[in-house]
């Protein structure tokens, strides 16, 4: 996993030890975080205080270009904070266990499941949600493409699909069909709009290139 910021920047490591995390959150989250930056920085957390799970921790999140300072419980997911604390309900919830992609956001341009990311972990990253793709009241390119191709039915998986396509196009402005399908393979659509979503991804690539 590529992360831009320096180890010292992660404020979560100051307030909380890794062991503190593991004692408060379930094994599922521990596995997820082990692959992320927590595991990458055991040194930084040595000697830090252990916080009880319910103790509120101040954090700063950079979301859609705005800075939010808030108090969170260390166990709160980024998804919960976005939806229920900040009212950014463009990001949806389908499973809260990394299966469906309804909660997909971009962290430093990479698609991430917000349900599998702790809010404290998300510090120091540039977080982009569906709302962040809007240009004022106007739809962004990927959103526009989804409208044109009718790339949804109920629309509930759609924010996640749009974020996945946005992330894909930021990395691969001219994706192949295979790249599109791989890029969307972590996002379920129970309404079964995939074939239109692929088309929308292709159309979005065009729109982004100004065609």
């Amino acid at each position: 996993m590529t992360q831009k910021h320096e180890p010292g920047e992660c404020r979560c490591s100051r307030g909380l030890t890794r062991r503190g995390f593991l004692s408060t959150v379930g094994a599922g989250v521990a596995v997820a975080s082990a692959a992320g930056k927590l595991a990458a920085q055991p040194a930084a957390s040595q000697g830090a205080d252990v916080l009880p799970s319910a103790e509120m921790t101040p954090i700063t999140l950079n979301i859609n270009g705005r800075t939010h300072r808030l108090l969170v419980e260390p166990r709160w997911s980024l998804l919960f904070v976005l939806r229920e604390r900040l009212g950014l309900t463009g990001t949806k919830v389908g499973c809260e266990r990394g299966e469906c992609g309804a909660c997909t956001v971009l962290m430093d341009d990479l698609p991430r499941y917000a349900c599998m990311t702790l809010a404290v972990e998300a510090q120091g990253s540039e977080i982009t949600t569906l709302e962040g793709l809007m240009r004022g009241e106007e739809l962004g390119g990927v959103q526009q493409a989804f409208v044109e191709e009718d790339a949804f039915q109920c629309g509930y998986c759609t924010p996640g699909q749009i974020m996945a396509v946005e992330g894909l196009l930021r990395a691969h402005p001219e994706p192949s069909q295979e790249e599109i399908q791989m890029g969307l393979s972590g996002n379920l659509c129970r309404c079964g709009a995939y074939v239109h979503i692929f088309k929308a991804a292709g159309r979005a690539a065009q729109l982004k290139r100004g065609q």
Partner: protein
Amino acid sequence: MSKKEIYAVKGLSVPETPASAQEPKPWKQTQMVGKGIPRVDAYERVSGTAVYPSDVLLPDMIYGAVLRCPHPHAQVKKVDVEAASKMPGVRAVITGDTPEARVEWTYSKEARSSLFDPHCRFEGEPVAAVAAETPYQAEDALRAIRVEYDVLPFVVDERDALKENAPSVHGAGNVLKTEKYERGQVDRGFREADVVLEENYRTECQLHTPMELHGCVAKWDGDRLTLWESTQGVYAVQAEVAEVLKLPLSKVRVVGHYMGGGFGSKLKAGKYTVIAALLAKKSARPVKLFLTREETYLAVGNRPPNNMRLKAGVKKDGTLTALDFSCTGTGGAYPSGGTSLVDWLVRDLYKCPNVRTECTDIAIHTGPARPFRAPGHPQGAWVLEQMMDALAEAIKMDPVELRLKNIPNFSQGKEGNPPYSSTGLKQCLEEGAKAFQWKVARSKALAPGETGRIKRGVGMASCLWVVGGGWPPSTVILKLFPDGSLNLNMGASDIGTGTKTVMALVAAEELGIPLGKIEIEHADTGTTQYATPSGGSKTVPTEAPTVRAAAISVKQQLLEMASKELKLDAASLVFQEGSIAPAKDPSKSVKITDLSELKKRGVVVGIGYRGPNPENKAIIPFAAQFCEVEVNTKTGEVKILRFVSTNDSGRVMDRLTYDSQVIGGITMGIGLAMTEYRVLDRDQTGRMLNRNWHDYKLPTALDVPLEMTSLPVDREDSQANSVGAKGLGEPVTIPTAPAIANAVYNATGIRITETPISPERLCRLLAEKRKEG
């Protein structure tokens, strides 16, 4: 179970709407209807401004969670909530001992239960519930509740439930009911046949798992309850909650503007709806209660598993002589249509004078079924359509040909044998075969000499859906403002099928108002009109004629106004886009926005009612699907290469959303055929083992063919209703699974009679076949 019971609210009376004043013929030519116009609510859905029920945030809102029985069969002895009640953030705890929570709950008319029934007959029955400041604290509190259970013997497989000494679900034998149907002389029919085939089949239990979780936000203002519920029908939820909580209907407001999918599992309220309301009452705070994904696998419905047998006779010329079908199935612990409509296609799809069916519904200790997209039909199609394929082969006839030979023009299964208002099954088969290049593809697949381990095959299947014409009641109100803009007010939900878009198109078509000037209010029992839940492919044929009737009422009032203004008889005036003019002298027109009476009144209100359907007609949608697969005979993997779906659903109302429904239906059918099945620990614990999307696999972006062609047979059904449309949402998913199975057979010579067509199963069958030589 009758269609009305499934898609209206069981046991609750449905109001009738008055006969519509006007039942015009469907339009001859259309300006707006039938084009591929993007959804009217697309902006909201892709921008994030659409507020789904799960998005609702209210001041002071807290979060509910439900503790569920972990056993398939148990008696609750004691629930100790003392520790939980004292935990940080906990604001309310309710159990079966809470006086307000002692309310009845009706899973089905035949078997009553209570909200927190101490006799838990399936894993996932609610035992207690809490509300706390955060969902995390609510979860903590659930963990702190101590429950003493008497764990009882269980049976979670209907194939075990009829054995001697099988544990009983309701105190007697586990057979809930057996339904029989017979016409003609079946035994004589078999004697007349040249070929008789007989086969056993099974389809596994499929779970809806819509993307938005089941749940609601509940808020009380004194004695008035407001619910924002993820539902297919706000009025159905209102009626149920009012009945359970003994509230006047007017005091229960249900709002469901957007919803993230239901597929039949959200036609009614759930226990969770009532629990949320009770928690909100107890805590005096608004409560948001959405289930976890795991809970939705246990407690909010499924498509029942079915074990089926079909014996079929055919003459060499393709005439079907007899069909004898039997099946067992289970709707789980409470009667909920375990075999409902499974035999319908056998009864009705193909011409056959001698038909016998017998369906036995069995109770087991699992969560009750709920209607799932085309209840019973995909299961029946799995049987009948594979059998047709086998019969065709036995008499050396093309499978499309065999079907074409047996197309009825009236319903053989319905009382009184009503003729179809229209049947496009022939066109579906012919046009589909042509677009698919069926003959070429089939002869290629059948050509000898293929020795590689990758084998190609093609298959097809067709279907009808038992009811596709919609029916009363429905009321729609249109408000035309003096600036020429329009408000459309209806109670129906748009469950993702494009209902709002279609209704806006109908109003635009009739009144010549641009879509940009039409705004829709819908799915709110407080502010919009009565409608039955959206489901059963009935929403468009129910609501669209109602919208048209309302538009015509607006038109007539405008003509009256213009008649006064122009001092001409209203009958001599005609409505043009945006203006009214004498038929004889169009130059003397008056703009609608200039009508002085409209300006004075501020609004013209048109009310439309859904008129009755034509008598003695069966309004039925038809479809055929064709597919091509590639089978790896070494690994058993099946790759679906392409699909063509031809649908006769009458007039195409909006091509974009039409096509979306078609590809969505195929995708869901691929799930049933290939990957979706419930796994229960049949012997040891009786619990469900794959209650999440990792273990219960939906089709993903990597599992669908890129080539999916939707080919409407776009002919208006002028007898059905005033817009000429029939339903679409169910037929698009009915023939998918057997079409794939037939293609796999075509590729490998192996008939897969049980879902799913998994690599394991196929590998085993391929190995067996190799052994047999």
